[in-house]
């Protein structure tokens, strides 16, 4: 820890409790060997988007599952619009919508049937459930596919239907668990627009994501978590300011040279340079200026530079500067989550994800 860790545990100062409140949540999996959540607290102000940012296995999904009454916490408590998620789970379920990173819709049913089913299970009358299904299919550009079974849907269509399913009961609080993971850039943009619309009309959104870009665009407030604990909280602007906006990455012929360079480059950054194999990363505000200084310094000490790159900080950089370790990605799988989305995390670059960069 290098003292740059901003605002840890600071809660938004509000007079009334937030729409979503989590207090000291603890959840232990795999017979006590994995603390998925380790005293996580946060509060989401009504009508805002709160971003929960972290690598795979950091506890994001576990937090969402507890808040949406799917799991019960081992310790701590949580409430939605003042209703405790354990004691008043039935009431909570009427005020939430959940869209997951796994499109949880029935692939043997058509789009319309899926939404009608969710409507009926949300206790809408038959007619109302059918009308709502029609409206949402139209809204999400799925009207033409309404009577096709989901087997024929693309990944993006499924994700839109999943989000539509979460909106059937017109919930005031919406949980979006990695809503755009695995989506193509266009679908991702489309989904962002819908989420912005929802917030525009007063929906409170809790969003989990691995992408800084997504968090930056959508969230009013961000909480970075790792190993089930909060490691930083603030607005996207605040977080970026503390983290620096550019990474200067200097590559050397071998790791011994890189190690030598660390000492030389140390005065150029507020924190400390990060050594990774035969390259050294500096997270700074003024990228080009620091890059030039770095080259001058290294040249003066006759350290040969093999390569130099300027890039936007990735999620990995955030974790490195906040925690001093790389995000471990697959340290454990949360139970009941099959699928292959749990591959090593893709570094999401602020401003341009590598998927978008190609466009």
């Amino acid at each position, binding site marked *: 820890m290098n003292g740059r860790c901003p605002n840890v545990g600071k809660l938004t100062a509000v007079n009334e409790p937030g729409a979503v409140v989590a207090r000291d949540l603890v959840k232990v999996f795999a017979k006590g060997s994995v603390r998925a959540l380790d005293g996580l607290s946060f509060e989401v102000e009504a009508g805002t988007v709160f971003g929960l940012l972290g690598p795979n296995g950091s506890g994001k999904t576990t937090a969402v*599952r507890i808040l*949406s*009454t*799917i*799991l*019960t916490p081992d310790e701590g408590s949580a409430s939605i619009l003042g209703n405790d998620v354990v004691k008043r789970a*039935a*009431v909570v*379920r*009427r*005020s*939430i919508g*959940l869209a*997951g990173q*796994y499109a*949880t*819709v*029935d*692939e*043997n*049913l058509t789009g319309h*049937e899926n939404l009608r*089913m*969710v409507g*009926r*299970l*949300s*206790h*809408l009358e038959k007619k109302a459930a059918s009308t*709502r299904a*029609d*409206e*949402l299919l*139209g*809204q999400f550009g799925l*009207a033409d596919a309404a009577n096709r*079974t989901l087997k024929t849907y693309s990944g993006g269509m499924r994700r839109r239907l999943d989000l539509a*399913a979460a*909106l059937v*009961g*017109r*919930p*005031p*609080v919406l949980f979006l668990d990695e809503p755009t993971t695995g989506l193509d850039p266009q679908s991702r943009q489309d989904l962002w627009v819908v989420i912005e*619309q*929802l917030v525009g*009309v*007063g*929906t409170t959104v809790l969003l989990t994501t691995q992408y800084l870009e997504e968090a930056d665009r959508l969230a009013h407030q961000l909480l970075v978590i790792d190993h089930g604990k909060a490691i930083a909280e603030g607005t996207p602007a605040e977080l970026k300011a503390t983290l620096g906006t550019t990474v200067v990455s200097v590559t050397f012929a071998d790791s011994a040279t890189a190690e030598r360079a660390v000492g030389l480059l140390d005065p150029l950054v507020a924190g400390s340079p990060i050594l990774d194999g035969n390259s050294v990363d500096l997270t700074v505000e003024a990228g080009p200026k620091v890059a030039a200084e770095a080259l001058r310094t290294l040249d003066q000490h006759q350290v040969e530079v093999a390569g130099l790159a300027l890039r936007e900080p990735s999620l990995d950089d955030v974790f490195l500067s906040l925690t001093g370790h790389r995000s471990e990605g697959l340290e454990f799988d949360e*139970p*009941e*989550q*099959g699928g292959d989305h749990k591959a090593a995390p893709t570094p999401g670059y602020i401003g341009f994800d590598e998927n978008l960069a190609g466009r």
Partner: protein
Amino acid sequence: MTTADLRPLSAPAVAPGHRLKWLLSDVATMTWRNLVALTRIPESLFFATLQPIMFVLLFRFVFGGAISTGVPGVTYVDFLMPGIFVQTVCFGAVSTSIGLADDLQKGLIERFRALPMARSAVLGGRTTADLVRNVFVVAIMTGVGYLVGFRITTNFFLYLVGVVILLLFAYALSWGFACIGLSAPNAETAQVISFPILFPLTFASSAFVPVSSMPGWLQAFATYQPVSVVVDAARSLMLGGAYTSTRHVLGALAWSLGLLVVLVPLAVRQYRRTA
């Protein structure tokens, strides 16, 4: 193009005092969903129907000639049909475990858990859908049985009572297989776990051969185990004559109700724990 009102409801609709209505509605919705899914995989429906038909033909024409009913005047096909009805509906319970394991694996149960629906409706809908499927299968098998010589020797009403009794038993068994489905990591495992339970129960029973033809040590099991009791009850109601036995009819009802009393809470508890 229609557009949806995206504004959230400040006070989401609550329907107080309608708990029973919504419980039944939830079970009906889940039953509907499972039955629709069934029709969307015609291959699976086709083979699910074909297999019992092949069993009827296999026992009627291949093994039947070598098996004596032990009762003069009773043909093997008459002896066989009540037994094979029970065997088939028992195997139908496997689809309960496969269906639930599949829903868990695909994350659908997650969605259901976050909805204001009744907790027990996922299980209720699954078992009810499997019951409806069993009704359909028994009807088809009766038709095939008739084509190969099976005749009800009591009357149609008693035949129907027999069908109700064996369907009730299969329904109770479904709740047991729901527990298996909820604890299995995937559908394939759920299926593999189910067969070692079903094979001894259905084959070491009075379904296909008279128990008296088995070795003594096996007879003890085969006579008293629930599948035999239900088969004997079905024979009593469908064939009458030497097979008439009120004791077995009551015994079959007792087994079914007893299993339901034990298995329903067990499955519901398992569902609540599975997260």
